[in-house]
Each structure stands twice: as C-alpha cells, then as structure tokens.
C-alpha cells in the first residue's frame, strides 16, 4: 500500500533463530501496529506504538518484542522463533485516535521450520 512498506515479504527461518520484520511508513502517522493473521483467528494484535519509543503489548505479545526509534520505522523481533509463530504478519498505521481506521501493509509471510 502506498505509504507503508513491509520487509521482507517472505521469509523462511529455522526454529530458535531471531528474526526481525520491518515496517516503514512515509505518512508521518503517530500510531503503528503489528498484527498476525492466522486462519480462524482473524487478526490479533501483537504490539503497538503511539510514538517514538512508546510501545505497548497487545493480546499475543509473548515471544515478540518491538522497537520504534524513528517515527517512520517499527520493528518486530521474534526473539527465538518457534513453529507456532509461522503466520502472516501485518503492519498498520493510523493517523489519530478513535474514528480513524488503519492503513495496512502488504504483509510478511513467515515460515518457521
């Protein structure tokens, strides 16, 4: 989607290795989110950020950490990848509070073998 880029688009990694996914935005939006998408579960929030160096946990944060050192970048790290973390990961950005929807990235398909 215009203004938000996720990298890599696809990744295969081995169990136990650390993995970092990157979300980059050019919209200067304050809020950024990481979700994972799994069949039957919809999208579940992992972590979110409401400003540089301001982050908080979502509903499925175990095994994940995030960092936001610049407005435009939000990194998601799997500290030691497990097979249960095989999923499609989406980053989203939001301009403001309440009535604003999200703009989503195209996703990263991660496979942990």
């Amino acid at each position, binding site marked *: 989607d215009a203004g938000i880029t996720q990298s890599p688009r696809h990744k295969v990694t081995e169990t136990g290795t650390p993995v970092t996914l990157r979300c980059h935005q050019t919209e200067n939006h304050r809020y950024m989110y990481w979700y994972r998408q799994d069949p039957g579960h919809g999208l579940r929030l992992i972590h979110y950020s409401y400003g540089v160096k301001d982050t908080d946990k*979502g509903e499925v944060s175990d095994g994940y950490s995030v960092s936001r050192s610049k407005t435009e970048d939000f990194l998601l790290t799997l500290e030691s990848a497990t097979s249960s973390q095989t999923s499609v990961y989406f980053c989203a950005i939001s301009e403001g509070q309440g*009535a604003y929807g*999200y703009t989503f990235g195209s996703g990263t398909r991660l496979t942990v073998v």
Partner: protein
Amino acid sequence: AQSVTQLDSQVPVFEEAPVELRCNYSSSVSVYLFWYVQYPNQGLQLLLKYLSGSTLVKSINGFEAEFNKSQTSFHLRKPSVHISDTAEYFCAVSDYNKAAGNKLTFGGGTRVLVKP
C-alpha cells in the same frame, strides 16, 4: 476486553445474488465499527466505517452496513455481487484509548466465494 464474532467463516454465493455477512460485537459502550476487505495475497483495505449519525453506511462499490446498537451488530450486505467481490471480509471494532490510539479488535473473517 472487546470481542467480535463473525458468524460465518465461509459464504458461497452466485454472481448477481445478494450476500449478507454477519458481525456481532461485545462492547457495551459507544464504539466505532469497521469492515475491511482482503483480496488474495494482499493487505486489508478499509471498506466502510460507522462513526456516528445515520446507522446505514455505504461504500463506493455497492456494499452497505447497518449499525444496530440494541443487537450490537454491524452486518454487511450487497444486493448483487460480482466475481471481483471474492475476498475475505473482516469486521472490526475500535477500542478507543486516548493514550494509545484506536486499537482495533477484529473478527475471525468471512471468506466470500462468488461463483459464476
């Protein structure tokens, strides 16, 4: 915590027939409601949203959704579907938090397959 239930995981429908996708949410307070669409191998795109005012909201491509506060529902409808409407549809409700922005809680998704 809020929850969103989409009652149908899959909905097969013939081209030019109507379709309804059901969504119920758990919040008892004022909410903002959204429908997103995901085409194969793509991210989610906002289809329509209810913020306030008229309970019937419409999208540019013929979808409409009606907010029913008493039934805590936000069902999505289209009177005549096209092959290009084949996609997965997600209902979402905001968790308005002044400090943290509008965290959205999503339903499990409904996969619509339009058959010729």
